[in-house]
C-alpha cells in the first residue's frame, strides 16, 4: 500500500468518525459531556479538526439542500399512513382507499384549515414547521395542533378517545358533550373529561397545563390532579411539583400569538425557531441572558428578528435558507 492509499484510508476513517459525531450531536440526546469529548477528538490532530469541519460544512449545506428538495418534491403531509387494524380494514376494501384519497385532497386544499374528521380509521397526523391545524374528533371535539407536531389517533377504547403525542404540542378545549380523553406522551399520560388543557412534548420532557376543568396526569412516579391555571412537567426521571401558569402565555399560540413575559432571549429564540422557517442563531451567547417582554404574531414571525436586534443592539446577518445570525 503506497502513501496515497494510506492517506485515503485514514481520511475515510476520520470522515466516518466525524460523521458519527455529527449524528450523535444532532440526535437531541447529546450532552455537555459529549461536547467535551467531541472537542477532545477534534484536537487530536489537524486532520481530525478538518474532518469535523468538513462534516459540519456538509451538514450546514444540507439544510438548504433539503429545503430545495422538499419544495420540488414534497414529503407526504399527514396522515402519513393508516395504522394497524389493517387486517380489519382489508375487509372493508375500498373504504380504506377512499378515506386516504379524501385525506390527500384535504391536504392539498384544506378547507378552513381543518383536517377530515377522524373516523374509526386510526391515523397519524403531523404538522410542518409554522403550521397549525385543527382536527375534529369523535364528532364534536376539536384538537388544536401546533407547529412541528406529530400525533397518533388510536381507536377509542370503551368510548375513551386515545391519542398519542409523539412530538410537539396540542390543545384541547372543553366541549358541550363530554368525552373522556387520554393523551399518552413519553413516559406518562394525561386524562381528562370536559377540560381545557395544553400538552407539550420535547423529546422525553412533557408539560401539561390545565386552563379549565381538571386533568389527571400520571407517570411512573405517581399521579397529580391539575386544576385551572396549573401545570406539571414529567419525564422518565419523574414528575415535577405543580406550578402556576400564565394561561394567556400558554394558550397564546392558539390565537396566533407568541407572548413572552420576562423570558430570556435564548428561550425566546428557541421558541421562535419552532415556528419560523430557517433558524435564528445567537452568535454572541452572552446576549442569551437578556430578558425580553414582547408579543409577536405568528403570521409575522419574521418581525422578531428586527425587533430583537434593536432591543439588544446586536448586528443581524441574514443568510440563505432563513438562517439568521444574531450578535
Amino acid at each position: 500500500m503506497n502513501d496515497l492509499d494510506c492517506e485515503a484510508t485514514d481520511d475515510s476513517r476520520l470522515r466516518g468518525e466525524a460523521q458519527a459525531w455529527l449524528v450523535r450531536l444532532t440526535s437531541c440526546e447529546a450532552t455537555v459531556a459529549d461536547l467535551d469529548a467531541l472537542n477532545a477528538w477534534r484536537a487530536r490532530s489537524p486532520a481530525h479538526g478538518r474532518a469535523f469541519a468538513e462534516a459540519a460544512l456538509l451538514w450546514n449545506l444540507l439544510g438548504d439542500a433539503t429545503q430545495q428538495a422538499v419544495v420540488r418534491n414534497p414529503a407526504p403531509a399527514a396522515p402519513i399512513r393508516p395504522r394497524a387494524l389493517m387486517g380489519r380494514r382489508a375487509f372493508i376494501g375500498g373504504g380504506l382507499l377512499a378515506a386516504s384519497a379524501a385525506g390527500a385532497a384535504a391536504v392539498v386544499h384544506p378547507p378552513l384549515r381543518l383536517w377530515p374528521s377522524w373516523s374509526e380509521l386510526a391515523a397519524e397526523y403531523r404538522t410542518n414547521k409554522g403550521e397549525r391545524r385543527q382536527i375534529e374528533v369523535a364528532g364534536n371535539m376539536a384538537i388544536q395542533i401546533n407547529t412541528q407536531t406529530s400525533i397518533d389517533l388510536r381507536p377509542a377504547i370503551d368510548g375513551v378517545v386515545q391519542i398519542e403525542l409523539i412530538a410537539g404540542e396540542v390543545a384541547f378545549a372543553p366541549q358541550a358533550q363530554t368525552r373522556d380523553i387520554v393523551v399518552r406522551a413519553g413516559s406518562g399520560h394525561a386524562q381528562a373529561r370536559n377540560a381545557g388543557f395544553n400538552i407539550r412534548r420535547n423529546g422525553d420532557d412533557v408539560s401539561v397545563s390545565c386552563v379549565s376543568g381538571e386533568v389527571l396526569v400520571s407517570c411512573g412516579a405517581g399521579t397529580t390532579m391539575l386544576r385551572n391555571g396549573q401545570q406539571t412537567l414529567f419525564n422518565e426521571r419523574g414528575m415535577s411539583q405543580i406550578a402556576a401558569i400564565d394561561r394567556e402565555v400558554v394558550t397564546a399560540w392558539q390565537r396566533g400569538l407568541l407572548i413572552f413575559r420576562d423570558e430570556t432571549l435564548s428561550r425566546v429564540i428557541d421558541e421562535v425557531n419552532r415556528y419560523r422557517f430557517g433558524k435564528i442563531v445567537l452568535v454572541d451567547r452572552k446576549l442569551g441572558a437578556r430578558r425580553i417582554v414582547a408579543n409577536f404574531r405568528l403570521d409575522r414571525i419574521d418581525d422578531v428578528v428586527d425587533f430583537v436586534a434593536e432591543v439588544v443592539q446586536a448586528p443581524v446577518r441574514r443568510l440563505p435558507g432563513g438562517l439568521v445570525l444574531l450578535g
Partner: protein
Amino acid sequence: MTESLLILLRRVLTSEYGWLRRRLALRFGSAEFASEVLHDAWIHLDRIGEGVSGAAVHNPTAYLYRIALNIAADRKRGEQRRLLRSEVDLLFLQAEQELDPAHIAEARSELKALALAIDELPERRRAIFIAARLEEMPHQAVAERFGVTVRIVDREIRAAFDHFSKVINKKHVPRRGPRPVKSS
C-alpha cells in the same frame, strides 16, 4: 470568609494539592477531572463559606476535600445537561468557519447537486433524513414515527450523509499534475 481563613485555606490547598488530587482522581476515576475541580476550588475559594471563621475549621484539608466534592458534583450535573439546538448549530457554524473561504464557497456551489442527491435516496431513508434534518425532530421521535429503533434512524442518517459526502467529494478531486497555463 475572613482574610486569615482564606490565606490558610490557600496555603493548605497548595501544600496538600497532591494528596487532594489523588483522592479525587481515585474517587472520580480521572486525574484530569480532579485537576479541573481543584482549579475551580482555588479560584472560588474566596466565595465559599460565608461567615465561616478560622476557628470553625478544625481540619482544613478535610474541609477543602468537602468543598472539592461539591464542586465535582456541580460539574457532573452540568455535564449531564442536554445540549440545546442553538448550541449545536453554533458549534457547526464555528467549525465550518475553520475551513478556507474559497473551499466553503466551492462546496456551496454544489447545493443543487446535493438537493438532487437527496431525491436519489431510497424512500424511507429520504423520509427519515428529511424528518431529522429539515424538521429537526429528535431521533427518538423519528424512530417512533417510522416505527423503527433509534439505532436504525442513526444508521439511515449516517448512510444518507455518507452518500452526500461522496457526491460532494466527487466534485473536488484534487489536482494531480501541472495546472493549466493561464492565458490573459
